[in-house]
């Protein structure tokens, strides 16, 4: 039996209150207003007073509009038919395809038992040397790209999606600009990946509350596919918009903010999503790559800060480069050991970064007008080559080729001893002139 009510007692922000009985916590309702139908979700119950957040926003809702409770919490369809399809933040198709409402599954389900997890040790190759050599991406990793608006983070995301060796891609767009959305679609289409992708797309012009559901929908579907043995890559962009939507609801509900207006449970809310990343024993996996734009390029802002405390490293995208400093894949040691990768992988990674760090120091010294020694000049040459041949995002080569390229760059700038690399590796890999 579905319960229908026609008396909204309060409207505040995007939260409405109705008097109703027999309503479940987190149950969904459908509200019919002059603007059409919108979903809403119960967020608080107090005796007969039921508070709901309205996905489409409260604009245009009148106090005697119809509120019809659906008797279940948020659900989403799950089937192979979803591949190649585009849904909105309420899980409704936004392409012209047929509605899918079979095999509905619960979203935001229980968490994985930690004792059922395994230590992840499969590298995801992206053909981007700054990732593959220096901060390898690992199956089941959760990793954000920290960036500021204007940087090509969505291009980077699209490229990784296209090149990563995964079975399928789920793109969760949160407050995405329309042209960015179209661009994702175009890139995946041209790369022939659209048919193994599913979009949950909330654009900047969509109601803000709908943004809240996008990560949950994407991850619930990803989880089901992973349990069926697929390696799923979930892209979430931009999680700062998600956090801002949380903030808005929290303020409407008069919660005491903890830091710059964000609710005290921001950490738990973000963690509940990111921790869905998993490598199932004897089944598939979920890897999460997210974008977190940093307001004011400030990594101590609550959103990047809380994110950093949750994820397994981060990529900093600065001036169009993945910055080797600050960027960190905390799982890389699981996949770059001589046992798991080419035996010069770690040595090249450490050696080239140390030299690059010295180059940065030299560059600073030069900027301050200090004299440049011969060694400084070598470093300057090296830094230039490193940037143009390794860091440039247009570089697109396999890990093995990138390692070979690393040796070539070193040989072009230094003597073997100056690299401080181990003798046995130099013997085997130093390019012969």
């Amino acid at each position, binding site marked *: 039996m579905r319960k229908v009510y026609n008396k909204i007692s309060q409207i505040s922000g995007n939260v409405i209150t109705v008097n109703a*009985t027999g309503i479940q916590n987190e149950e969904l309702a459908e509200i019919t207003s002059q603007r059409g139908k919108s979903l809403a979700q119960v967020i608080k119950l*107090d005796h007969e007073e039921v508070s709901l957040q309205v996905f489409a926003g409260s604009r245009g809702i009148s106090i005697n509009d119809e509120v019809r409770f659906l008797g279940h919490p948020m659900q989403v369809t799950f089937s192979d038919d979803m591949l190649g399809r585009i849904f909105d933040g309420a899980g409704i198709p936004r392409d012209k395809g047929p509605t899918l409402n079979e095999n509905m599954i619960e979203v935001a389900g*229980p968490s994985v038992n930690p004792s059922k997890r395994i230590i992840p040790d499969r590298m995801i190759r992206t053909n981007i040397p700054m990732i593959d050599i220096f901060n390898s991406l690992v199956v089941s990793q959760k990793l954000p790209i920290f960036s500021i608006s204007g940087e090509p983070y969505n291009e980077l995301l699209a490229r990784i999606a296209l090149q990563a060796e995964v079975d399928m891609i789920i793109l969760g767009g949160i407050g995405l600009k329309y042209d960015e959305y179209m661009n994702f679609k175009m890139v995946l289409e041209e790369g022939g990946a659209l048919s193994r992708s599913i979009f949950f797309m909330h654009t900047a012009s969509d109601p803000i509350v709908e943004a809240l559901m996008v990560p949950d929908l994407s991850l619930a579907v990803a989880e089901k596919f992973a349990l069926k043995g697929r390696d799923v890559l979930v892209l979430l962009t931009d999680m700062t918009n998600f956090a801002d939507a949380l903030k808005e609801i929290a303020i409407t509900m008069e919660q005491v903010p903890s830091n710059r207006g964000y609710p005290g449970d921001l*950490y738990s809310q973000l963690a509940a999503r990111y*921790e869905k990343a998993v490598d*199932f024993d004897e089944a598939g996996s979920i890897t999460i790559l997210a974008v977190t734009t940093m307001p004011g390029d400030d990594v101590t802002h609550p959103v990047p800060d809380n994110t950093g405390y*949750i994820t397994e490293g981060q990529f900093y995208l600065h001036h169009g480069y993945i910055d080797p400093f*600050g960027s960190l894949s905390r799982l890389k040691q699981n996949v770059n050991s001589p046992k798991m990768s080419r035996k010069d992988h770690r040595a090249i990674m450490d050696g080239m970064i140390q030299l690059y760090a010295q180059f940065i120091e030299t560059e600073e010294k030069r900027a301050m007008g200090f004299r440049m020694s011969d060694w400084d000049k070598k470093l300057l040459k090296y830094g230039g080559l490193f940037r143009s041949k390794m860091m440039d995002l247009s570089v697109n080569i396999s890990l093995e080729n990138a390692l070979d390229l690393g040796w070539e760059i070193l040989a072009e700038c230094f003597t073997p001893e100056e690299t401080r690399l181990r003798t046995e590796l130099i013997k085997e890999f130093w390019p012969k002139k």
Partner: protein
Amino acid sequence: MNLTTGTITGINGNMITVETDGTIMQNEVAYIIKGKERLKSEIVRIGQGTAFLQVFESTKGLLIGDKVEFSGDMLSVQLGPGLLKQIYDGLQNPLPDLAKEFGFFLPRGVELKPLDEEKKWEFTPTVKVGDTLIRGMKLGQVPEGIFDHFVMLPFNFHGEFTVTEIADKGEYKITDTIAKLKDEKGTVHEVTMTFSWPVKIPIEAYREKHVPTDPLITQTRIIDTFYPVANGGTFCIPGPFGAGKTVLQHILSRYAQVDIVIVAACGERAGEVVELLREFPELEDPRTGKTLMERTIIICNTSSMPVAAREASVYTAVTLGEYYRQMGLNVLLLADSTSRWAQAMRELSGRLEEIPGEEAFPAYLESRIAEFYERAGLVELNNDGFGTLTIGGTVSPAGGNFEEPVTQATLKVVGAFLGLSRDRANARRFPSIDPLESWSKYKSFIKKRLVDDARDLLRRGNDVNQMMMVVGEEGTSNEDFQFYLKSEFLDSVYLQQNAFDEVDSGSGEERQKFVFNYVKKVLDTTFHLENKDKAREFFNHLRQQFIDWNYIPMDSPEFKSQEESISKIITEYSEDEKGL
């Protein structure tokens, strides 16, 4: 006895309000009855005919009017043999057992027995009929792995008790009665090998608490030599994300020379616990020859598990720690991260609409943190002998800024502050403990004067470095430059330690004393070096020699020969030796 019941009248996140007219008490456990599910919750506030409960599970799908059963007991853990090697959630549910029964996901509203009640233990009595005991005293013992697990008079037995019956040596289940005792009024009580204890009440079944003095050897040089921890003491590890808190705690959990380690993974990544779960059963504990798991208990309430249970998890962990301390053991509790626990308190406080303090943390944040660390200590047992519980917590300050409530409240109560620095982590100088900011109130096994000298040198080297940024190397005197190089030398060969090298990752007391002596010799010697390039070259060379030395096992012949070659270099370049 009829248990009190009530009905739900409000739901706000993981907090519910329940109407009841029965007798209830603060911190009492209650269950929400939802079909077959029994959702565990705890009373956190009591008002007129209403109780406010935090629910340890997801409240999705609950209804106004759902029935609630109060248990009459405070939130408790079960104590007894069989706790070691276990992996529990924050409420002492054994996670591997849950996995066996329910598969990949954590089910809602299920409780499993924390201890195996079928297993038999070899009990040896240590008292006889007629003996009188007070709580915490030993009735007998059972072997639990490498330890003698004391079977004690339960800690809630107040007063004096006389043994009227005691089981013979033999095999018993933990629920079998192993003794009967008469209290002062003549009432006879039965005792088994197991009993429960409310987690938020400290166990104080001991004679007296003493000031901790003995160093706890962590085998991490910068800690033991510079900022030591004492057995029974407290310390905190604050640091921004990615600075190395968890890695440092993992190192401590492996190398600390204590009897038992309890790891409380509180609101952090599940993946990090998995490393312990999978690796500890494989790693050998050099002190016992058994695996590290034999001395470990893992309490795991990771970030996506229910927030209220996260709040409980640190109490569960500390209670188990206190229990093993009662057996005269040295216990180390590592909590990662106490900030997540504080945040759990904040979330609850917000839902209770309490007046918020700084950054919306509740006003009682400080006292809760103080109470928690107060449960550490060196205690003199009722049975003679001593036991210790050391507590080390990581702190995850918002924005990496130590001027925030949780760090500040923690700094007020702990005995040592191991502050991690973002700069050191970025420069891959691990462990990234800041040698200039950190402090400890405990005593190092190396003479204070020597340590102070070394620390002064670090400060001076740092000053020179700052100055060089402005005036360049050219504008720095050779003498100052040598100070700088020495501080860098001390940093790279002694403060830094390679966690991934089998030898370097753990450095015992003897070795630290031995090596520090040599390092000190370098710091105290004025070297004859004509110019800066020569000086740099010399120290680079010396550094390499020391780092190589760090990788050589102390009992191998190469250790001695490396020592000799280092000695030679020092003498060769020393100004004193040249009679200058």
